[in-house]
């Protein structure tokens, strides 16, 4: 009972926005994170992307007070993690898959957290159900597959019904069904108004999952913003591909309207500077039959590779 009451009270006081402000982490000569600032908004899934060694994990651990920054601050709802009175009721984090004693059962792992955090024991059974782990609840952790470990991690994070979720590579080890399940869960949690920050290098997965992205490489911020906006910003204007048996005639018509047109194989044109609708209208006016018309969407992967080109991941 107290659980729901407290969680609601916490939510109203605290908007769950994550703010990183000039975060720096130096390990000897290596600057793993270099003056990194970004914001993560509630009610959205934010993808935290970067090549291996970009400093993603270090950054997440600084947000969670596990790693001490060399400089800068990170706050959640305006407060540092260490200053949260009941951190598990505000933030749930999934950081590494193998984070339970190998001889302890999944249910007992969750119960231990419940005792330490003052949650009712029944909460353990609820989150087991939530992540679909109930059938394996009384098996020792050492027998869990990687996917089951990820699920137990998510269950642990959800114990306090937190406003903010932070996940480091949660898709690792999940099978396609597991990935689908996680995507639905995270989107559903964001739809409830929670802040969801997910690091990953699975770009196609991120494109379907995330609303916003924060892209880093070599410890520095490259881009942040809504996925579509970042893609457009980086890849420039959309291109439209048009198929017609009269490509030259169509090209003339479109050029007259001010579009830039190039040929892309027999019967195919690539059009920049006109929307698919405008191309279709122009073809109709000129009496040219169109056999195909589609907008070429640059994807997150192209954008990511373009942005991070030359920023060697391993330093």
């Amino acid at each position: 009972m107290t659980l729901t009451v407290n969680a609601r009270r916490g939510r109203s006081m605290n908007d769950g926005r994550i703010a990183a402000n000039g975060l720096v982490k130096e390990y000897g000569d290596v600057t793993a994170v270099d003056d990194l600032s970004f914001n993560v908004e509630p009610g959205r899934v934010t993808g935290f992307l970067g090549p291996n060694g970009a400093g993603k994990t270090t950054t997440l651990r600084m947000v969670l007070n596990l790693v001490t920054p060399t400089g800068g601050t990170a706050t959640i709802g305006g407060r540092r993690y260490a200053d949260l009175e009941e951190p598990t009721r505000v933030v749930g984090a999934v950081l590494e898959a193998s984070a339970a004693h190998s001889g302890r059962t999944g249910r007992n792992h969750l119960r231990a957290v419940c005792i330490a955090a003052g949650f009712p024991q029944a909460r353990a059974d609820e989150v087991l159900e939530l992540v679909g782990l109930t059938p394996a609840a009384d098996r020792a952790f050492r027998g869990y597959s990687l996917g089951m470990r990820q699920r137990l991690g998510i269950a642990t994070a959800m114990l306090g019904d937190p406003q903010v979720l932070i996940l480091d590579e949660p898709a690792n080890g999940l099978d396609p069904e597991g990935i689908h399940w996680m995507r639905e869960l995270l989107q559903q949690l964001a739809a409830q108004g929670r802040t969801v920050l997910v690091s990953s290098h699975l770009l196609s997965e991120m494109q379907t999952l995330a609303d916003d992205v924060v892209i880093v490489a070599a410890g520095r911020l490259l881009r942040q913003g809504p996925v579509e906006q970042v893609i457009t910003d980086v890849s420039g204007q959309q291109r439209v591909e048009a198929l017609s048996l009269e490509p030259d005639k169509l090209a003339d018509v479109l050029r007259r309207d001010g579009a830039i047109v190039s040929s892309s194989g027999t019967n195919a044109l690539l059009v920049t500077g006109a929307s698919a609708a405008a191309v279709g209208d122009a073809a109709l006016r000129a009496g040219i039959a169109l056999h195909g018309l589609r907008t070429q969407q640059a994807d997150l992967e192209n954008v990511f590779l373009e942005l991070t080109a030359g920023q060697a991941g391993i330093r």
Partner: protein
Amino acid sequence: MTRLVRAELFKLRTTNAWWLFALTTLLSTLVMLVVVAVSAHSLLQPFAQYLAVASHGHAANLPPEFLARLTDEWTLGHPAATQAVALYTAGQLPGVLLACLLGVVLITSEYYHQTATTTFLLTPHRTEVVLAKLVTAVLLAGLAWLASTVLSVVAGALFLHAEGYGSQLGHGDVLRALVLNLAAYLLWAVFGVGVGALVRNQLAATVGVTVLYLVGASAASTVFELLNTYVLQRDWVLTAQVIVPTVASAVMISPTKTFDQSPAPWVGAVVLLAYGLVLGGLGVAILRRRDIA
């Protein structure tokens, strides 16, 4: 804090650690009881009988120095209270080591099983985590002392009765030994938590503590004897052996002087406690700044 201690106890209860620790404590107490009872059985005999057994029936033609040594041993060991002390604290040698190792493992297993992340996410104030583990270790060490002592006192009193003596439980020296034994369990548990906070590698910490515990005293005595002979021929050099934890423990527990220059028992207790606190304090100071990755 209560919640954290309860969680620590729960964590122990839900792994093998719990019954392994309990079983080892009781079994090792039992083995030590047998060893002590065998020696007590001969020492509690009248001198003539003791001599006959110890010399394998050749008491008449013993060399005088050997006879003198046997006489000393018998004089020292014959009082029933002395044997009661030995019996009632029989499990001390392995029991105290186990309590100390439990303190070590309470902390190092967090790294060994990579649960440190979860633990410190739950409680960002790391000092609280270490304090909870300290309280847990002390509680369990007390419990181990209780289990070992109950077993020893019941078995020991029955044995003494069979030998024709009373339980000796009214004797001041016996009660004092029981209390000091408890102090040894508790202080070594604190020491263990200190070591665990400082040395996070489970294997290094447990092996290191075990070696120190088992050979620390004899190694220290050799080193300090050499120092006294070749470097500085003062009595206080030998007294200074008490700075070695194992020697401190022996000085604290022993009803008689451990060695000729040994200081008062309370010095041993202070040294042992200081080790636990300094190591623990240092460990916490480092742990607070250490990155959990």
